[in-house]
């Protein structure tokens, strides 16, 4: 084993060790288990955004749409179709992912600023639909009337609803599965091609790579991951509301990715930890938490554009 591999293994062990033991060490620092689940879910969302932003170099500023769509579809499936947690997850993932795939086909020819603008605007469509169609979605009050269901494995029945720690581990296992798939994709030839497109799109095109198709597939995958995270979020809150579709949540995901470090696989999770915990803390101590978050964003953009993990890596190389 080379030192490089050893280091990578050590990082992996540290990340997973911290996540697995979270219900035990978090209360020592004033955290609570539901906050841990929220960090994981939003972290998965930020990693999905970064799958596109950090590894393909395409900025989508409307990814909350797929997140919220996943949340609503999961809630509606639980409420009206079948009371089963895995079914809700599946429905949410498929609904958000499919919608993303279809709209992605419209978007892939756009680049840069234009792509960002079009994704913002399209993201808001779903916000307005959720807001207006109150007979189905509950409008501004949000979608209520569903709860996550116990997992039934014949021999044992796991009560996810009343035991936060059980649900945390359910979220952690779902998170691990999604992240593992993400890592496999990024290490595959397809993932390498994504990075090639990020580094030099024109050159990749000269090599005969169908750029639009690759960006479309990357966008689609990212939407599916996002919708999965959204479905988990609906299960976490037993609730879905239009703000889960709003562009300010998209912006939050992007800032988490940037804050943690876009070029690092675990960066967005790290950013999510900082952002979610800080937001939770600030909104409990001051009514002006929005200003603090805004100032934080401005400071990060001006002084830490590479994010925390990017900064560490830079120091190591220097």
């Amino acid at each position, binding site marked *: 084993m080379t030192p490089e591999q050893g280091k990578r293994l050590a990082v992996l062990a540290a990340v997973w060790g911290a996540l697995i033991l979270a219900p035990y060490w978090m209360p020592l620092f004033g955290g609570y288990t539901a906050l841990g689940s929220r960090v994981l879910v939003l972290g998965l969302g930020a990693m999905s955004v970064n799958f596109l932003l950090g590894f393909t170099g395409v900025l989508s500023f409307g990814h909350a749409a797929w997140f919220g769509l996943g949340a609503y579809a999961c809630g509606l499936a639980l409420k009206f179709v079948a009371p089963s947690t895995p079914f809700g997850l599946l429905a949410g993932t498929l609904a958000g992912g499919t919608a993303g795939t279809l709209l992605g086909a419209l978007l892939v020819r756009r680049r840069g600023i234009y792509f*960002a603008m079009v994704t913002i605007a399209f993201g808001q469509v779903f916000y307005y639909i959720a807001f207006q169609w109150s007979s189905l979605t509950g409008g501004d009050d949000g979608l209520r009337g569903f709860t996550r269901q116990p997992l039934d494995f014949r021999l044992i029945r796991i009560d996810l609803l009343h035991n936060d720690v059980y649900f945390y581990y359910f979220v952690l296992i779902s998170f691990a599965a999604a992240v593992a798939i993400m890592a496999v994709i990024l290490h595959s030839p397809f993932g390498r091609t994504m990075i090639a497109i990020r580094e030099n799109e024109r050159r990749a095109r000269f090599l005969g790579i169908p750029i639009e198709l690759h960006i479309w597939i990357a966008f689609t995958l990212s939407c599916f991951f996002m919708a999965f995270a959204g479905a988990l979020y609906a299960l976490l809150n037993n609730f879905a509301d239009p703000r889960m579709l709003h562009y300010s949540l998209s912006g939050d995901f992007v800032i988490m990715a940037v804050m943690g470090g876009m070029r690092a696989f675990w960066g967005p999770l790290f950013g999510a930890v900082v952002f979610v915990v800080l937001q939770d803390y600030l909104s409990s101590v001051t009514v002006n938490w929005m200003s603090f978050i805004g100032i934080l*964003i401005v400071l990060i953009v001006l002084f830490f554009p590479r994010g925390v993990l990017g900064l560490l890596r830079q120091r190591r190389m220097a």
Partner: protein
Amino acid sequence: MLQLVFFNVTNGLIIGAFYALMAIGLSLILNLSGVINFAHGGFLVIGGYLAYTLTPYLGFWGALIIAPILTALIGVVVERLLIRRLYGRDPLYSLLLTFGLAFIIEDGTRQIWGANGLPVSVPPALTSPLSYEFFFITGYRMFMVATVAIVVGLLFVLLRYTRIGVRIRAGTLDLETVAALGVNVRALRSLNFAVGIFLAGLAGVLAGGQLGLEPTMGDGLLMPSFIAIIVGGVGSLTGTLLGGLLIGVASGLTAVFFPSASEAVIYVMMAMVLLIRPRGLLGEEGMFT
């Protein structure tokens, strides 16, 4: 029925003119500096609230002129201190920065002026309906459209015939060459940013007189402005104007037949434009694509 259609089309045109005013400011900044100004709605709010504060001292007419100028000055300060550092970097960063600014501005207005809605008092001469039959065309609405028409007309004349206007248009096409010709690009961008923010501030005053003021009022007006730019074509100010008017009329017409979709129809228009003519109605091929 005919009157209903007429009512909604007029309404749509008025709203469209308003969207266009917002969108042209956004478009100016986007074209020359490559910055998507998420805080544009925030500057609109600042303009409106400044007018509210100034009206008791200067009257409505004074506030109408001074408030946008003050807003533009705030804009220049923000540009010099923050946004200028991000020119030439990935557009992601300026987008995020203005996104953070929008938070600060919204919270700041709430802190200073309170969370409750406030009115901007409009001279009584402007509030009366013009005729009994067309009760919906109040003097204020005509005044809004006229103001937008005059300001936008003036802007287009300035851009076409003055030296600075020509430089701004040239910079939109090729900033590097303009810089190489000895034009002070930094000052040009500051000025251009100020003009964009002035338009946002003016939109804020006008909207305040019609709808009243709220700290979140910029939020709902920002998206239609984005769509106006996309429909009209990125890079073309005339396109942005056209896009704003078009989506205004489209949502007005939809309101006659299917009121709950009046918001959604502008997104459908955007999708159609992207499908059929991806560069936008008057956009130039290859620009930002």
